[in-house]
Each structure stands twice: as C-alpha cells, then as structure tokens.
C-alpha cells in the first residue's frame, strides 16, 4: 500500500535526470558573475564622440545668442528727456480720457444743483 504522494512521485521518476540538469543550469546562472567587458578610457571617450559633438554645438548656439551687440546700437536717453512724475501722471490721465471716449462710456451726467426755494416759488407763480 502506498500513499498518493508516493504513487505520484514514482510515476514521474523518469523526469528526475532532466530536472537535475534544469536545476544545475539555473544554479550555474546564479554562480556566474555578470559578464563585464573591460572598457578602456579611449573606447569610452570614443563611444561618446557624438554626445560631445552635440554638446559643443549647443554651447556654440548659446554663446552666439548671448553675444553683445555692437556698442552704440542702444541710444542712451538724455537726462533732460526723462519725463517728470507730473508729466507721466498727466499723460496717463489723458490716455484714460481717450480710452473712455473711444469705448463709448456715457459721460458723467452734470450734477443738478437745486435752485433756491425762493426762486422755485417765483417760477411756479409765473406759470
């Protein structure tokens, strides 16, 4: 009499050598250190040649964009032409007025100041 486990293991005993080989293969893969090729500095630098070329080109573009323009191209503003704060304020108010004018905002209605009571009474009396 055998247990089910014994029967099952016995039935597959023929696969044991294949399983041993399989196990040995997996374990051998573990024992083997990962293969690393010795790379010299020269080879390493050579492998990066395109990266260096691209970086150089990028830096050249940056340098060209940052280059100072010819002196005198930007005219200095004379001191006497700089507007005073009062002038600036007046200019701003004028701009605002023009803006309101163009945007059809109704003008502020004149404030109606009631006349004197004595005058009102005369007007009614006349009518």
């Amino acid at each position, binding site marked *: *009499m*055998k*247990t*089910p*486990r014994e*029967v*099952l*293991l*016995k*039935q*597959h005993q023929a*696969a*044991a050598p*294949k*399983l*041993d080989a*399989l*196990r040995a*293969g*997996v*374990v051998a893969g*573990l*024992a083997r250190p990962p293969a690393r090729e010795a790379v010299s500095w020269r080879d390493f630098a050579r492998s990066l040649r395109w990266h260096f070329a691209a970086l150089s080109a990028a830096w050249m573009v940056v340098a060209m964009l940052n280059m100072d323009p010819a002196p005198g191209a930007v005219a200095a503003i004379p001191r006497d032409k700089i507007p005073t704060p009062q002038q600036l304020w007046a200019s701003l108010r004028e701009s605002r007025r023009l803006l309101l004018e163009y945007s059809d905002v109704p003008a502020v209605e004149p404030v109606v100041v009631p006349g004197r009571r004595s005058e009102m009474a005369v007007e009614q009396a006349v009518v």
Partner: protein
Amino acid sequence: MLVVAEPEQLPVEQAKAGEPEAWSVLFRRYQMPLYVYVFELARDEQTSLDIVQETFIAAVRHIGSLRDEAKFGGWLFGIAHQKCSQLWRKQNREAAWRGEIAETPPDLDDSPDELLIRREQEAEFMKSINQLPPPQRSVLLLHFVEDFSLEQIAEITETPLGTVKSRLHYAKRALRKLLEEK
C-alpha cells in the same frame, strides 16, 4: 509513541543572500513535487519542464518579496500555479479552469492519510486524477504532493478557503468513486 514531524530546515535565508548552494538545496527539495504538480495540470512534459524552470528563475528574482521564510514551499508552488493558470488562459480554457460545482464548504470527514493505494490500483489512480476537473485536480495534488493545509492551498491558488474545502471534498469523493468503479 507520538511522533511529531519537525519543521524542515531549509536554507531560505542563505538563498535570500544569493548563495547558489542554498538555491541548489531548495530546488533539489522541490523540483520533483513541483514537476508532478505542473505535469498533472499541463499534461505535457516539455511544457512542464519549461514551467518548472521559469518558476525557479522567478523565485530567484523575487525572493525578496517572501516575508515568511517558513512559507517558501507554498510561495514556490504559488508561482508555478500562476504559470499554469497563464497556460490555461492562453489555451482559452478559462471557463473550464474556473468551473465550479458547489461553493458550500462541506464537513471534511476524511483525512489525507486515509487514502492508500494498492499496487494494482496505481495506474487507475493516475487515470482517475486526470479525469478530475482542473480546479479539483489542482487542490487535490497540492494536498497529496506536499500535504499543504487548506489555508496554504487557498493562498497558493488565490481561492477563497470555502471554495478550496468544497473542491477538496468533491475531488476526494470523485476519486474514491472512480477507484471503486474500477
């Protein structure tokens, strides 16, 4: 005299540390039970060998995720089970794999050691196992081959405990019936 089986001392910690010799010991311990389990589900030698190899490689790669070292066996069978499920899915037999008979867990009145097979019954026993639906076969094999507990089987197969109970119950009953008929 009461004999209590001592828990197996397996070099799981050393394997975690990446010692090839420890892995060799672990693989030697589980290679045959794992192969039996996979073969009885896949029914193809080459496929089974491939799955066992993939299981070993995955175990080496993911050993860091194993929290409880005492559960190494169940964890390894879990990987193999997932690979078998993938195979079934690939073969478009998901419906058959997921097929259920009853979800109500019956009372388990039969112990694993109860079933003993006579020499003349061995061939019939193997045939009978193959006739069981895959979910029942899977649970029964885990129970027979490694004597996993119901909880462990539930973890390995990612199935609710009640389902495992009912599968095991019906599988044993069906197996007995098949053996008696012959």
